[in-house]
């Protein structure tokens, strides 16, 4: 069988047309990113007052808002990405390797976005970077978020991603092309001989082993950022960390499914990213959802029954109060997919369309839940009789977050363009 390099048997105009779509998407993303950059510049020069955030207490607002909500979301996504990648490696699910790579990309990208968003939320951004290195205090849960999650874990996943990309690069480097120099460079002397591949396999195996605990810990600290606060009704809960981790898994997997589906469609990789792949992802997602929904119910019960007056106020705001719409929509966006996937699991028929829908729904749901973790405990969470506050984001916050999503699209797009997911085919032929 030919070892001809992809794309096979594809009319050039199809490719052009696909490039055209690709370019416009990238173009749009760039535009949105530009808006985000402008909004941030505006925020830096005028201060965070241009956002909807205000002091808690007398300020009658939320001092953490949409930004922190999305930080949590992004970190969550990254978590799932790297887990899947690692699991695939550890469980040797070779047929999922294709997804593994995407998962790694997803991880790295969303981590970068999370890090940037934290900076965007700081009143003294440059100081933030400088002082965090100068004076970092491990005692602060926040320290965990910054160092472990963002720094350590970003580094680990970068290495991980590099190892795999290196192999692709090596494969790609065998072929003439405008990017050959890059692929050579990335491959850095690695030429994917069986021996090398053997070493590569071992290296990334152990890396995977290492990453798992690191990231459970890291992500938990993000849960602690909220979970350890006695002063915030609705936050002080042992469930914060585990619940956080599972929701993270769900949202990450969801996004992964969407991404996989896109690549599959765009790259006509049906034969590689086959139903089996999606079935696996579906099962993962279903698992995560089941656990999370369980946590959700437990938390609801504890909040509504055993809780003190302050906790009561929060749960009221969530269940029947001003946050009920968001709460129930997000809950629905998480429960519905769970049911659908359950049905699919029973029937053993994993339609890609359904999975993509589920993926999108779960992510919207996750975003809603993240927002609800952050905001209500501030606006309704004061223990002294300040009265309730209110928070609604401004265009600045929407633009900055939007800009970051756009950046994500650009980065992923760039990666896929530089390293078309082709190593896969090699595998196919090899295993043939």
């Amino acid at each position, binding site marked *: 069988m030919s070892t001809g390099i992809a794309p096979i048997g594809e009319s050039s105009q199809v490719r052009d047309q696909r490039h055209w779509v690709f370019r416009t998407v990238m173009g749009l993303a760039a535009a949105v990113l530009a808006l985000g950059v402008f909004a941030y510049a505006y925020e830096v020069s005028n201060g965070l007052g241009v956002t909807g955030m205000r*002091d808690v207490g007398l300020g009658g607002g939320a001092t953490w808002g949409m930004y922190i909500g999305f930080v949590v979301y992004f970190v969550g996504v990254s978590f799932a990405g790297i887990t899947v990648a690692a699991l695939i490696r550890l469980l040797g699910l070779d047929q999922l390797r294709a997804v593994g790579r995407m998962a790694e990309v997803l991880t790295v990208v969303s981590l970068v976005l999370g890090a940037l968003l934290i900076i965007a939320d700081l009143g003294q951004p440059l100081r933030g970077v400088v002082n965090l290195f100068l004076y970092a205090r491990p005692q602060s849960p926040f320290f965990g978020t910054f160092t472990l999650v963002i720094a350590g874990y970003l580094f680990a996943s970068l290495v991980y991603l590099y190892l795999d990309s290196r192999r692709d690069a090596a494969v790609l480097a065998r072929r003439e092309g405008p990017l050959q120099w890059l692929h050579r460079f990335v491959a850095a002397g690695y030429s994917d001989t069986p021996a090398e591949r053997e070493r590569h396999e071992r290296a990334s195996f152990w890396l995977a082993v290492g990453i798992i605990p690191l990231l459970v810990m890291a992500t938990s600290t993000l849960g602690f950022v909220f979970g350890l606060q006695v002063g915030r009704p609705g936050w002080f809960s042992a469930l914060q960390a585990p619940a956080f981790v599972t929701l993270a898994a769900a949202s990450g997997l969801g996004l992964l499914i969407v991404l996989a589906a896109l690549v599959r469609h765009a790259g006509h990789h049906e034969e590689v990213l086959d139903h089996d792949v999606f079935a696996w992802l579906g099962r993962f997602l279903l698992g995560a959802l089941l656990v999370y929904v369980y946590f959700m119910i437990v938390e609801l019960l504890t909040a509504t029954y055993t809780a003190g007056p302050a906790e009561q106020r929060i749960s009221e705001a969530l269940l029947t109060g001003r946050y009920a719409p968001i709460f129930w929509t997000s809950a629905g966006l998480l429960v519905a997919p769970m049911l659908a996937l359950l049905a699919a699991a029973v029937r053993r028929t994993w339609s890609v369309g359904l999975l993509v829908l589920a993926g999108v729904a779960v992510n919207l749901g996750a975003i809603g839940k993240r927002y609800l973790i952050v905001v209500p405990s501030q606006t309704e969470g004061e223990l002294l009789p300040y009265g309730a506050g209110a928070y609604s984001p401004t265009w600045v916050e929407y633009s900055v977050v939007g800009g970051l999503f756009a950046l994500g699209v650009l980065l992923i797009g760039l990666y896929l363009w530089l390293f078309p997911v082709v190593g896969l085919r090699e595998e196919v032929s090899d295993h043939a």
Partner: protein
Amino acid sequence: MTKYAMVIDLDRCQGCRACVEACKVENNTPQGAMWMHVFRFEEGTYPRTQVSFLPRPCQHCDNAPCVKVCPVGARFKREDGIVLTDFDRCIGCRYCELACPYGVNVFNWSEPEDSYYLDWSDVDILGVTGGAVPPYKNPDLELLHGEEQRRTAGGGHLKGVVEKCTFCVHRVEKGLRPACATTCPVNAITFGDTDDPDDPIHAKLDTRDRFDLLPEAGTRPRVHYVGGRHPGEDARQVEKVDSEVSS
């Protein structure tokens, strides 16, 4: 070893908010920033109504969650019990603000220079104030304080940092009482050194029924209350202040 503390006598407090004003002027806090707040609240219904007042500075907790969570050590507790913010180090993450159960922290959402109520750039005013903003700007607030020798006094220093009640560290180090305690028309606020057996503060602390705010939060405040009542669950704040910040 000095250990500062404050006792607020709710059987004297008139809820007049002179302490709030003294704090604002002394510490040059920007518009909307109130380090001292005086709750006025009602409980019960007519005619069995109870009207109560509750002044609320920073509680300078011995077990201060705000200090614990600060990622860069900008929020710190001194030997003498005062909890301060180093505004040269604060990165403006506002984590302290969330960790604090009492809602006493204030973030500078915009440029303090532009948040002092009136336009002081009026030429006639500049002639008198030499451009000081606010015109009553207190020079002591730029000095270094404590053995840490950090700039921790006063407010309205710069955009993007969190500020709060400092127990008037710049006055206390001069041997003066905090501005709020000094101005209180009925001397409801007693400030002193609990480690000094002769300090008058003991007269209040040891002879009267007392309570701390939100004991369940386990923060171990250095601000104590005698007389009066802890706000109950149905406490309804009345006569709110205008803490709108300019942005």
